[in-house]
């Protein structure tokens, strides 16, 4: 009897503890990626890994640059992302003297970030030329090129950025002792086509560009080690190993798994073969680490459905950004305009300040607000809010100021207090102007809200960003056209609103 009691107690206890374990949700782990294909593919790979290790993954893709990713990592809005050692040195740890990986790793540890060992590839600048030409003239390294007797007959064309950078062509020429050659700038994507058509023979490449495979380009070895190293590493928040130890451990499986040739191949699949990044990532993990990854449906119908859902999602996200920022701007800007009108000296300060705010570059605003507001809709809404202020403040102020003097005096001599005058006379008379200002802000907002994609807020900017990255014009249109239609719709909506909000008497032309 006692034996049975003990057994049943144990069963109950086991069931209890099992349900305790099950009620622990999978930890959410977020990976970020920048707005270029290589970064997004790596992000997808990491996303699958997280899922496989028992985490709940979120991939905040196509974030607008190093600063955004880094700040987001520090703030905890993402848990990890792939960065390059050269970028860490120059843009994240600027000013610090870092010698080698270990000191870089230590500097990052101080900031509560763990740097993995190299993933295996180095994405830096290099010189490239057609494989067959390089073979003919036996050019393997940059020194070979510099010493090549055919050099005067060669046309070299570099991208504008490469020509401008201090660590680009200017330094390279000095380092390798290139004679003065005709150097003209060209757009990066056109540079590859030119190699193919023979309009030039040498150009600058990134060592993991997809086009290297496509155009059979030989990447010349940088034998003198001129170009800085941009080894890919994973940066992870140190608290991830406490929060989701299995995931943190699993990520390390990617160390040394991706060499240059592999990365070129992955990039090519995405950019040239136009395979879905998620799929490329799944295949990679299956081949390299023998992981089984389940993917979403793949047929045409499934794709179409995904596209439609995605566009509806984008619409919802876009509207959210526009409506909230506009509402906040109206609440703040109309009173500011009234104050500017009532107190001219303060008004000057207000108008000037709001004017200056208008000139702040969007990226700067976004980067500055991420530590406070995180990633997602909030920093974008804040930026849009700032940009909506000027049209509304200015139009409120002008609308009030333009009220004819005799009407203002009529209101005064009636014996109305200044607040009554504002409410009954001045604001209604200024309503056309105020509404026009709000409408301007709204339409501008619809266009500017595309920056939301840079901070993971979605909206119609997302397909635009992706389309730019993948060189897919139809994707760009999937963002640009709905955004334009939305702007037209907003215009029309305000036309209707005018009928409701503007006093009827103001719509007559005077006798």
């Amino acid at each position, binding site marked *: 009897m006692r034996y049975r009691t003990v057994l049943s107690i144990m069963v109950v206890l086991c069931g209890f503890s099992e349900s305790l374990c099950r009620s622990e949700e999978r930890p959410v782990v977020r990976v970020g990626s920048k707005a270029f294909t290589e970064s997004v593919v790596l992000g997808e790979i990491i996303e699958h890994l997280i899922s496989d290790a028992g985490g709940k993954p979120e991939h905040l893709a196509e974030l607008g640059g190093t600063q955004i990713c880094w700040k987001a990592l520090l703030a905890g809005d993402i848990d990890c992302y792939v960065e390059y050692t050269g970028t860490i040195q120059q843009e994240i740890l600027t000013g610090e003297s870092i010698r080698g990986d270990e000191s870089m790793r230590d500097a990052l540890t101080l900031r509560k970030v763990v740097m993995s060992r190299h993933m295996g590839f180095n994405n830096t600048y290099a010189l490239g030329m057609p494989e067959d030409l390089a073979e003919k003239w036996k050019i393997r390294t940059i020194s070979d090129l510099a010493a090549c007797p055919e050099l005067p007959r060669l046309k070299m064309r570099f991208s504008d950025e490469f020509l401008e950078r201090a660590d680009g062509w200017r330094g390279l020429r000095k380092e390798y002792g290139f004679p003065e050659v005709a150097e003209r700038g060209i757009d990066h994507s056109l540079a590859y086509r030119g190699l193919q058509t023979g309009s030039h023979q040498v150009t600058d490449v990134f060592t993991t560009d997809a086009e290297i495979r496509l155009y059979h380009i030989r990447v010349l070895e940088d034998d003198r080690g001129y170009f800085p190293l941009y080894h890919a590493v994973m940066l992870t928040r140190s608290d991830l190993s406490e929060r989701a130890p299995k995931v943190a451990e699993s990520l390390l499986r990617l160390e040394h798994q991706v060499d240059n040739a592999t990365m070129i191949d992955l990039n090519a699949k995405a950019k040239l073969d136009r395979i879905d990044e998620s799929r490329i990532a799944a295949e990679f993990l299956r081949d390299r680490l023998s992981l089984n990854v389940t993917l979403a449906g793949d047929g045409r119908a499934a794709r179409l459905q995904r596209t439609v859902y995605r566009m509806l999602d984008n619409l919802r996200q876009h509207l959210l950004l526009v409506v909230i920022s506009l509402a906040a701007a109206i609440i703040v800007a109309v009173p500011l305009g009234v104050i500017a009108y009532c107190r001219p000296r303060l008004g000057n300060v207000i108008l000037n300040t709001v004017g200056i705010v208008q000139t702040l570059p969007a990226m700067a605003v976004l980067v500055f607000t991420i530590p406070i507001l995180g990633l997602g809709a909030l920093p974008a809404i804040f930026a849009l809010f700032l940009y909506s202020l000027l049209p509304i403040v200015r139009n409120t102020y002008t609308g009030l100021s333009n009220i004819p003097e005799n*009407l203002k005096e009529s209101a005064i*001599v009636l*014996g109305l207090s200044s607040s009554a005058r504002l409410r009954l006379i001045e604001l209604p008379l200024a309503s056309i102007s105020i509404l026009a200002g709000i409408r301007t802000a709204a339409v501008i907002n619809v266009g500017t809200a595309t920056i939301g994609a840079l901070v993971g807020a979605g909206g119609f900017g997302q397909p635009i960003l992706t389309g730019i990255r993948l060189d897919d014009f139809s994707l760009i249109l999937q963002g640009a056209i709905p955004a334009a239609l939305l702007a037209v719709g907003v215009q029309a909506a305000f036309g209707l609103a005018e009928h409701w909000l503007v006093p009827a*008497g103001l719509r*007559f032309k*005077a*006798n």
Partner: protein
Amino acid sequence: MLELDQVTKSFGSTTVLHPTTLSFAEGTTTVLIGPSGCGKSTLLRIMIGLIQPDAGTVRFQGEVFSPANQLAMRHRIGYVIQDGGLFPHLSASDNVGLLARHLGRDAEWVRRRIDELTELVRLPREALSRFPAQLSGGQRQRLGIMRALMLDPPLVLLDEPMGALDPLVRYDLQNDLRDIFRTLKKTVVLVTHDMGEAGFFGDEVLLLGGGKIVQRGTLRSLLESPADDFVTRFIQAQRLPGHDS
């Protein structure tokens, strides 16, 4: 009713009004007349507190005009400007009833009062529901008068009320206005540059020049015994029959 004591005003270095002392007795109609820049409008605007005098006081019904009581005082003074000064976003009747509603009078009272005034100023009833932009100049002016009389103020100030109207309309309105003022026994101060109008309305006419009162009296006394050259020239300029050479 209204007293000005040594009221002075300068704009910059120009003295627009030299120290002026005036009083306006109850029930009288006084007309201020003179060429542009003589200070007549300035004087009127000081009376309603639109302009603060540099020196001197304005006393209305015994109280000195000050920021504390100016709103209450203005409720007891009607002010009419050229073209009526109606607010374009409100209908005619809303314009007239604006202040009364704001001060809490109920809709019924306001409606009855507007009806009264519509009869008084002889405004066609259909005009009430229209907007100022849809009305003629004469109608707008009548509405301006209605609005000024809405709360039955003892004092009415008018600044060139008929300046924007053509002669026929002006004639009718002048007749109606004088009847109204006499019937209601209002104290009236009216600014004009038309001597004929001045004589028609004014128990007393004050001719201003260069910020000073040059002559005052009935129109007849000005015409028959002008105080100086300025008065003579001003009368001449009016081209009144018998006085234009």
